[in-house]
């Protein structure tokens, strides 16, 4: 640790030794660098951050990553099992999947048999359905069969299909986008509400503080799911996808802001005692300047940590609501609406791959939790 | 029953005192034979035991184990194995505590005096570990009958019966050293339950008795109260009662007056001295306060960065301090004769971090008598400068 010994989170740069003073060892590190330095030592949090970053890349490039149009219905291909990608044919590198041959069993159920003698070639940067990215209309996809007009027989379904023969993998890419967008929008709302109420509560104290704190306690003592469900059920079923999206976003952020407000208030109270704030007051800085110039910067990491943890909760909330059929509704594609198709355990027994979106939820939520914990630990560069 | 335990213990002549004195109580003391337990543990052959033999074989003949010392610490090393590296908190400490006397250990914070105290009872918390040395406990006073506590094993029954029984300890912060969730009666009862075979009622009466002896009013009622109802001074008295109730032979007091105001401090010191007289008990008194030392100690050991730099009788120490560090310490306290406008000298520099130990004598960067080429090269050894005092400094080398 090459940290200066005195805490001065307000100044971006701390200097223990004057850099001009000859050959003395210079130890300069900004607050941000210090946090980053500590965060890097937290290996699990680093790995989690990489995973979260991958999820964000999926949000941006979901159509590029998809192999099929997520909304394409292939009646002839319902409940096909995953066709795992194969990278080698024997020892020869060859990207392909095995062709699935459909037939009917004695109960007239459709069954698929993998026939690895018939390879379906998979190409990189293949042409497929058209989509828009950054305002451009593109038709290239990371993987595909390089045929925009591919038939159901020739199409690849890496993670299998659902009851309507829609490609699970491509839907997952699209679903990641919507689920994370709900969370991010919700976080945005929560940060604005939470930090302002938290800051007001911490800075003014007294009656206002008491009022806000008691309200938060009451809100937190209410079970969220029945309330969410009650609110969601009150939305008319004929609302457009977008309108419902925003309504659900507001619902899931109803509680998240309380945690942010609590964190901000706590930091404020702690900070108010710090010498550098006293120094700023003594120096005659006005309140606004003290809040925005001196105190807020040292909150960033705490706000990011709390937001990351809240994001995880929001993803779970959305998934749960939609799973119960009270959140987003089809044709919207999210983790929740995808899991909605796996509500029935008999269906799951028939097509277990329908639970794959659940794995995505778990990985994302765990990664967010580890990352948030890591940031929170790192945010106190002088703590412990 | 209780009247007997109250009697000042007679001087010891043979064997374990508990078997000879205060028979009514001692007949019920759990009969852990320390010596036999020691032999059992020796066969375990742990690191400390073997390391101890190394010391014995390579040790210098200058500091023989004093036959009459009740507690004799030799070459004690306690290290902390942290992620950042090994911290040598106690780095080869020697001193003797004579029966019925008070040994004061002085030093600035971080010099390892508290760790030394905890090492004696083997209650050093992880990542700390005693890596070397011996702690010879000799309650009988007979030469050759000493037990090396380190050979007992920290969690052995024998060590636990000594810990809190024959050697008790009181701590710096009385407010936090009691559990706030248990009544005082519960906490003193536990000590008695561990170290005596008295009945519940007898233990309660003894607890009341001890509270009264340390000067706490309404002792019976106090037994049922929680520590947060006590004042700081009362808590320290209560802690002394809890430490004394097993009639320990040695009391280790780790800065017992630091957290108290001056008036209370004086009362606690008086109390400790009275307890010592009544019970013929040795005290190992740890403090950074030289004023306190001058009041209570018979002998003084000065520590700096985990090492003993000077040891000797308290009068010689105040009259004629030998080590430059001792001298600096003494000149930095105000005296009756300091004129009001005079600036008190302070020791220049600050204690280095234990991981950045200076080469040679650890005190040399702050030393007034620093000799280049000597002090920053070799480490001085503790050696006698006269009949009473031992110093570890190159100024006295070859005298």
């Amino acid at each position: 640790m090459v940290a200066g010994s005195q805490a001065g989170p307000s100044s971006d740069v701390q200097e223990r030794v004057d850099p001009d003073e000859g050959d003395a060892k210079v130890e300069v590190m900004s607050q941000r660098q210090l946090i980053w330095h500590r965060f890097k030592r937290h290996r699990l949090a680093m790995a989690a951050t990489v995973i979260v970053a991958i999820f964000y890349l999926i949000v941006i490039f979901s159509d590029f990553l998809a192999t099929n149009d997520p909304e394409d219905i292939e009646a002839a291909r319902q409940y096909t099992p995953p066709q795992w990608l194969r990278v080698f044919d024997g020892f020869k590198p060859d990207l392909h999947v095995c062709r699935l041959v459909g037939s009917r069993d004695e109960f007239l159920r459709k069954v698929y048999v993998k026939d690895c003698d018939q390879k379906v070639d998979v190409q990189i940067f293949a042409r497929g359905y058209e989509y828009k990215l950054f305002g451009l209309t593109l038709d290239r996809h990371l993987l595909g069969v390089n045929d925009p007009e591919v038939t159901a027989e020739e199409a690849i379904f890496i993670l299998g299909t659902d009851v309507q023969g829609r490609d699970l993998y491509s839907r997952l890419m699209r679903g990641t986008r919507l689920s994370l967008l709900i969370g991010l929008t919700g976080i945005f709302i929560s940060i604005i509400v939470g930090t302002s109420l938290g800051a007001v509560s911490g800075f003014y104290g007294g009656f206002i503080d008491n009022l806000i704190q008691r309200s938060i306690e009451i809100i937190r003592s209410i079970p969220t799911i029945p309330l969410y469900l009650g609110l969601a059920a009150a939305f008319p079923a004929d609302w457009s996808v977008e309108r419902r999206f925003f309504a659900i976003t507001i619902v899931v952020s109803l509680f998240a802001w309380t945690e942010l407000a609590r964190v901000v208030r706590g930091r404020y109270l702690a900070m108010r005692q710090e010498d550098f704030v006293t120094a700023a007051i003594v120096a005659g800085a006005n309140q606004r300047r003290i809040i925005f110039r001196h105190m807020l910067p040292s909150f960033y990491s705490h706000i990011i940590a709390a937001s990351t943890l809240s994001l995880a909760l929001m993803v779970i909330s959305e998934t749960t609501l939609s799973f119960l059929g009270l959140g987003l509704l089809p044709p919207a594609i999210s983790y929740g609406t995808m899991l909605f198709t796996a509500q029935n355990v008999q269906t799951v027994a028939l097509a277990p791959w329908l639970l794959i979106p659940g794995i995505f939820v778990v990985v994302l939520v765990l990664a967010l939790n580890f990352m948030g914990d890591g940031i929170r630990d790192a945010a106190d560069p002088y703590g412990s | 029953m209780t009247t007997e335990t109250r009697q000042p213990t007679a001087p010891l002549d043979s064997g374990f005192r508990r078997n000879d004195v205060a028979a009514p109580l001692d007949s019920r003391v759990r009969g852990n034979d320390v010596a036999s337990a020691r032999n059992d543990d020796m066969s375990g052959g742990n690191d400390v035991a073997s390391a101890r033999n190394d010391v014995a074989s390579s040790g210098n003949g200058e500091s023989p184990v004093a036959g009459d010392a009740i507690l004799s610490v030799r070459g004690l090393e306690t290290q902390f194995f942290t992620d950042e590296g090994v911290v040598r908190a106690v780095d080869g400490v020697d001193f003797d505590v004579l029966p019925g006397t008070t040994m004061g250990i002085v030093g600035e914070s971080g010099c390892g005096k508290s760790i030394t105290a905890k090492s004696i009872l083997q209650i050093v918390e992880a990542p700390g570990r005693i890596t070397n040395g011996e702690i010879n406990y000799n309650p009988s006073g007979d030469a050759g009958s000493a037990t090396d506590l380190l050979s007992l094993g920290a969690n052995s029954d024998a060590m636990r019966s000594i810990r809190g029984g024959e050697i008790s300890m009181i701590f710096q912060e009385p407010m936090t050293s009691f559990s706030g969730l248990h009544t005082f009666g519960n906490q003193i009862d536990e000590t008695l339950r561990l170290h005596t075979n008295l009945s519940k009622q007898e233990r309660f009466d003894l607890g009341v008795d001890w509270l009264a002896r340390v000067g706490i009013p309404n002792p019976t009622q106090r037994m049922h109260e929680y520590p947060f109802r006590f004042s700081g001074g009362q808590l320290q008295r209560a802690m002394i009662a809890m430490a004394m109730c097993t009639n320990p032979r040695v009391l280790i007091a780790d800065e017992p007056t630091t957290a108290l105001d001056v008036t209370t401090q004086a009362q606690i010191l008086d109390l400790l001295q009275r307890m010592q007289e009544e019970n013929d008990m040795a005290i190992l008194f740890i403090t950074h306060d030289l004023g306190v030392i001058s009041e209570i100690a018979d002998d003084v050991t000065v520590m700096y960065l985990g090492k003993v730099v000077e040891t000797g009788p308290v009068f010689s120490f105040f009259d004629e301090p030998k080590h430059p560090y001792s001298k600096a310490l003494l000149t930095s306290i105000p005296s009756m004769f300091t004129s009001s406008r005079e600036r008190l000298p302070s020791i220049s520099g600050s204690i280095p971090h234990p991981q950045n130990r200076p080469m040679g004598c650890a005190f040399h960067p702050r030393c007034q008598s620093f000799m280049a080429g000597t002090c920053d090269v070799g480490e001085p050894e503790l050696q006698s400068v006269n009949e009473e005092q031992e110093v570890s400094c190159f100024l006295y080398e070859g005298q």
Partner: protein
Amino acid sequence: MLAFFIRRVIYAVIAMWAVSVIAFVIINLPAGDFVTTYIATQLATGNLVLEDEAESLRDFYGLNDPVYVQYSKWITRILQGNLGFSFEFNAPVRTVLEMNLTNTLLLGAFTVVFIWVVAIPIGIYSAVKQYSPGDYIATFFGFLGLGVPDFLIGLVMLWLILDTTGFLATGLYSHEFRNAPWSFGKAWDLAKHMILPVAILGTAGTAALIRVMRANLLDELKKPYVTTARAKGLTEWQLIMKYPVRYALNPVISMTAYILPFIISGSVILSFVLDLPTIGRDFLRALTAQDIYLSGAVILFSGWLTIIGTFVSDLLLAWVDPRIRLEED
């Protein structure tokens, strides 16, 4: 203690009032009042409701009054035990809820007990043996429990059991006991059926509690009173169990109040996945059918239940912590 008690009572009453306002708002959110809904449902079953009959219904429920009058009439009726009428079940809401209230309370209570019994020992072990393999395993499962939504665990467990044994582990009673009076056999049957839902419902809470227990115990283990106890000659386990564990239990009790809303929330979803006869299942059915009075009552009671649970855990905290119990008034 008295001051503490009074403060807590006032706080609980205010919280219950706040929840009732929220429930009332939700009831009144959907477009059109419930008489409109009622007329629609009656029409669907072939009954025609006359306009003056509708008007008298509106008068009876005070739907033409200002909002605050409506609220006070509604809450007064609730407090008198009249929870309204469920169109979906075609019975008074009270009758519908009473059927499954015992199951709901049992499920919640068992889950809290399960969480304590599992989390406390694991938390102690994790803290005392910090950084041991066992600690890492406990921490890993703790995170997993926090990260996986209840319904997903329920679904996966159900599927795994179905797949391996062919047994559909849903419901709380076997068929033969479903409508049977209470007997030892029925209780045993219920206990067996409770294992799966309780374990699933308890995962998140257990995970949270393990982390709290571990973190608090790690803090407590460094406190001076532990050193004092050690210097008395207690064995390490004796002293840990008597002092720091006792201290670390207090936050665990407060934490229980905090996880109670999550248990109630989780039980609603799990009732759906595992088809448990609780008010959660009735609730979801009411929601999908826009059965306003029933869903409003469930929101109200799940909130009130939580507040009462929090109040009880506050009292429990005061009971175990003399610093609160003996607080000067």
